[in-house]
């Protein structure tokens, strides 16, 4: 993350292109205004020179009214240029604010929209922290790039070019002297810049290390207290802290010194220019300039001093933006990388529709919510067939691997009839959760077939397939919002009453009504204000309100203690009634009453049968049941 790669020139092109595509009119206007107003900034130097020439001319006679006739028109032109430039500055600054934020908003939206369509594999293989860093840090660097670096560069570039032109116009000698000075300045700043970059990277590393240590200690603070380990922890921290201080100090020292160095080289350059100008003037050296004016006047010398300041000042600005640009491009690359991730493919064409079934069992499609669902299956010959959704699931010889060469499931075959409860037991890594990942097509199988109501699930549109499967996971992710909102997530058009009924069904109503604001209690921070067990109950209610024919409960009641589970059990039983349910549980009491229990080991089903059968078998299940074996 912190290593600085060389920015890809394509990235800058793409950022600019994207800017143009978002703002095909505003962005070019902004650029034009920046360039024109910056060029106008170079013009006053001509006027200063002119004014000084006028003073020189009339100063000897002291004729003010004579001077005025020349001075006033010059001043009027100057003021006009100033006013025009000012308006442009105002307009482009305002436009830039609009463009920057608009661009960021659109980028964010694009990233987020793209992310919603990414396959689960992406989220399983990328850390949340890294994804988040793209939304925060990387987008922030883009903000810096667009709102500051680009205008600065344009401005400084325009000024430098214009001033350079003006310089050549006045005196090529002086320009050459300045050029040598500027080259020296750039050389020095590059040296200091690379020093600071080196230590900034070190600083980032130490900071990361300190953060890791702090995180570990803060999480284990209670253990530190229990073991009276405070002093040792402090001691260890001091070492890491000192290293961070050292790197940080060096990084900033280099970065800080860049300013004074450039500024004072600028000052020396200024003196050199003054002395040279003075010498040229005093010695009456013949001037060579694009203006073909052979006289090197005092006015030219003075003007050059001002231009020196402008020239070096703007170069300084450019050099200070370089760091920001490098960082922004690295950020932009990650932003684009996220946007370029391939979305989840969906070739499914079988859809889920509301249906009406007449007495003869004929199924017809309807727009109304009937509570009866059917699979609409278009065939190659243009005909349509409807199959009633009943929740029968079969797996036939399913193999699967997350990573090539590391098979996770071998030859899994199972039949779940409508309304059956199928349980999976086994150690972590045995492949229980993987099966459910395949059912809702978070991942696609490598070999074999999964059929849902007789239809190959690869033919079913993913969103419709998932809609028909209720899923409750061990990590219950609730969203910021009220309890009611969270339950309603399962069925967006559910009435309050439906939500409450769902909660009642799963036995969650009891504790919810006892919360400070009942169903309107706001859950914040993924539900940190309620217990894990209560979160699981809300998640179960959320699945219940969706009323799906098939449910997957992956360790859904793991955090509810056995006593409460016994109370909830009734609700769970009524929830599972009439549905095909896949249950994954650690606790055997949860799965005991299943129609069939699959004992899994290393990606294979090693035993299957109901509780009594498995106990009688005296195999692995029996060992687990009697506690002779540790599940982990």
């Amino acid at each position: 993350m912190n290593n600085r790669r060389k920015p890809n020139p394509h990235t800058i092109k793409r950022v600019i292109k994207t800017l143009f595509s978002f703002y095909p009119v505003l962005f070019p206007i902004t650029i034009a205004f920046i360039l024109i107003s910056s060029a106008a900034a170079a013009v006053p130097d001509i006027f200063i020179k002119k004014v000084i020439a006028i003073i020189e001319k009339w100063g000897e006679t002291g004729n003010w009214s004579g001077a005025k006739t020349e001075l006033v028109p010059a001043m009027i032109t100057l003021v006009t240029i100033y006013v025009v430039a000012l308006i442009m500055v105002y307009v482009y600054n305002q436009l830039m604010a609009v463009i920057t934020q608009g661009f960021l908003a659109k980028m964010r939206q694009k990233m987020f929209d793209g992310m919603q369509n990414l396959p689960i594999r992406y989220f399983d293989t990328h850390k949340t922290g890294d994804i988040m860093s793209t939304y925060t840090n990387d987008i922030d660097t883009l903000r810096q790039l667009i709102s500051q670096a680009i205008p600065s560069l344009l401005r400084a570039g325009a000024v430098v070019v214009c001033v350079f032109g003006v310089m050549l116009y006045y005196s090529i000698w002086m320009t050459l002297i300045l050029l040598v000075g500027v080259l020296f300045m750039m050389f020095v700043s590059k040296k200091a810049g690379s020093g600071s970059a080196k230590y900034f990277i070190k600083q980032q590393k130490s900071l990361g290390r300190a953060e890791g240590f702090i995180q570990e200690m803060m999480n284990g603070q209670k253990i530190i207290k229990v073991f009276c380990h405070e002093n040792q922890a402090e001691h260890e921290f001091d070492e890491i802290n000192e290293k961070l201080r050292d790197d940080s100090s060096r990084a900033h020292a280099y970065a800080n010194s860049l300013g004074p160095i450039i500024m004072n080289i600028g000052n020396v350059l200024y003196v050199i220019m003054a002395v040279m100008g003075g010498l040229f003037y005093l010695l009456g050296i013949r001037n060579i300039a694009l203006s073909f004016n052979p006289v090197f006047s005092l006015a030219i010398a003075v003007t050059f001093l001002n231009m020196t300041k402008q020239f070096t000042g703007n170069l300084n600005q450019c050099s200070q933006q370089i760091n920001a640009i490098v960082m922004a491009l690295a950020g932009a690359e990650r932003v684009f990388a996220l946007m370029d991730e391939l979305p989840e493919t969906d070739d499914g064409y079988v859809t889920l529709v509301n249906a009406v079934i007449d007495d003869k069992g004929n199924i017809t499609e309807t727009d109304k919510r009937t509570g009866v669902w059917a699979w609409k299956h278009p065939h190659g010959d243009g005909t349509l067939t409807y199959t009633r959704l009943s929740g029968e699931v079969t797996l036939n010889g399913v193999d699967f691997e997350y990573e090539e060469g590391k098979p996770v499931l071998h030859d899994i075959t199972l039949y779940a009839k409508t309304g059956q409860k199928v349980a999976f037991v086994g150690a972590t890594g045995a492949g229980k959760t993987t099966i459910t990942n395949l059912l809702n097509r978070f991942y696609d199988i490598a070999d074999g077939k999964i059929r849902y109501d007789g239809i190959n699930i690869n033919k079913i549109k993913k969103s419709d397939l998932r809609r028909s499967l209720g899923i409750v996971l061990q990590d219950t992710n609730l969203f910021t919002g009220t309890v009611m909102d969270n339950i309603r997530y399962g069925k967006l058009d559910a009435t309050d009453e439906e939500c409450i009924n769902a909660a009642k069904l799963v036995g969650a109503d009891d504790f919810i009504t006892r919360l400070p604001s009942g169903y309107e209690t706001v859950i914040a921070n993924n539900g940190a204000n309620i217990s894990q067990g209560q979160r699981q109950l809300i998640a179960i209610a959320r699945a219940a309100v969706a009323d799906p024919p098939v449910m997957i409960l992956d360790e859904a009641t793991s955090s509810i203690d056995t006593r409460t589970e016994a109370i909830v059990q009734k609700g769970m039983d009524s929830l599972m009634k009439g549905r095909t349910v896949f249950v994954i549980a650690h606790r055997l009491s949860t799965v005991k009453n299943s129609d069939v229990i699959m004992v899994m080991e290393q990606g294979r089903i090693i035993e299957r049968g109901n509780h009594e059968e498995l106990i009688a078998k005296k195999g692995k299940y029996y060992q687990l049941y009697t506690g002779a074996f540790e599940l982990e």
Partner: protein
Amino acid sequence: MIKRLLKSVREYKTPTIWTLILILMEAVIETFIPFITARLVNNIQAQVAIAEVIKTGVLLIIMAVLSLLCGGGAAFTSAHASAGFAKNLRHDMFQKIQTFDFENIDKFSSSSLVTRMTTDVTNVQMSFMMITRIALRSPLMLIFSIIMAYIMGGILASAFVIAIPVLGIGLFKIAQKAMPAFRRVFKKYDRMNESIEENVRAMRVVKGFSREEYEKEKFGVAAQDICTDFTKAERLVALNMPLMQLCVNFNSVFILYIGSKLVINRMGGIGIGQISAMLTYGMQILMSLMMLSMIYVMLTMSAESAKRISEVLEETPSLSEPNNPITSVADGSVEFKDVSFKYSKNAKLFALSDINLKIASGMTIGIIGGTGSSKSSLVQLIPRLYDTTEGSVLVGGKDVREYDIETLRNAVSMVLQKNLLFSGTIKENLKWGNENATDEEIKEACKIAAADEFVEQFPDKYETKIEQGGTNVSGGQRQRLCIARALLKKPKILILDDSTSAVDTKTDAKIRKGLKEYLPETTKIIIAQRVASVEDADMIIVMDNGRISETGTHQQLIESSEIYREIYEQQTSGGGSDE
């Protein structure tokens, strides 16, 4: 608040002061430079001898070199001072957190403490550096420049009489208006990022319910809202540039026009050099104002961070050390006398009420009860992780509040429910229990805790590296190592708070047998979900709703306690392997 933070500057006061001195010198020199330059220009114009011109030039170069030395020096001292200040802040916070009692720890979430110690400290460090470098420099430059402008320009300087207040007030007003707007939008921005994180974490739920479109729409609304607010705030700040430009432009027009009039009319003793210098001063003055407004913005922005840091530094632990602490614990007896307890003074409900309990030294006690029955709360009072609200807890016949805390906690070894191993080798982790433990002692403790058997299976044995959070050993193994760690303290009282939940029943029984054999003198208090884990205890305490519902042996409770019977039946019929 600021004062509280500045206390942490300490040994970095010297470089801080040096920074200020160097910056002061730099500012003085820098204001003189245009003055000398003007002389140089005037020299040239007056056609004085070239030697004189060079003399002035050399003077200028010397000044530039001095300015470079001061500026460069300040660059180093300020970096040194601010990085040191940050180090001290982190150190002080860390030290402070080490003195926190459990109540303080509960108050701050660990992730918020991490942010406070990293991001917030970095913000303050940057501000500190900026302030020492610019905050002094800008007003100085401003004042010097104004003074010099008056000395040199005389009447010409009146240009600033208009420009300075216009720009100053304008910038201040803009900052004043923009700041709350930014603060609001940053809060919204944080919330949006939180909801993105929520979305990422809950991706399985989103996809499981096919809510992709819904999420996109929800996000779109939030993103648009933020965009609108952000744009508003940014547009306010975007007024800075044109305002600045306006003042600079006004200045140069004024100076050029009036200046030429004065020169030509030979009034005010002004030459061409002065005009040029006045233009430079004008720029400097207005730039300083711009910088000041930037500092103002930065200060208010980092004030939030400063506040969050001082919150930690000012937190006071509520546990107080006794004046004449007792430094030895007589035996492992425990007594609760009319104990009531709630987690904070403002809490409505008591976590524990009316607890009266006597445990003789060397007994094995089992505690059982449903979630929320305050089993953990009860035992946490013994090593004085919290103080009772009413009543007292006695260990070895003395009130726990009379002991030296370290003495007490060394005598009362507790394995927390949320136990953790730290990154480092297994041996290093175990040595938390006793720094001077020999390899034999470590091995013995592990044998009792049934950890030796699997540790010996690892290729590196006791030198095996544990990853952060102990993720590379299984839950059961982690629990056994944590028990071994607690045993190494050779405690008088050992508390296991649901510490064998991931251990299979056989191993669990083995550990209990080991404890009984090797630590007959030690009082053993075992909280468990499994009846099997407490069945053979000398006394079982059944907790319900923060009260002791009943005490007795397994047999007695099966007969008398409904709750106990219920748990027992549910578990024996439901299978032995619990969570």
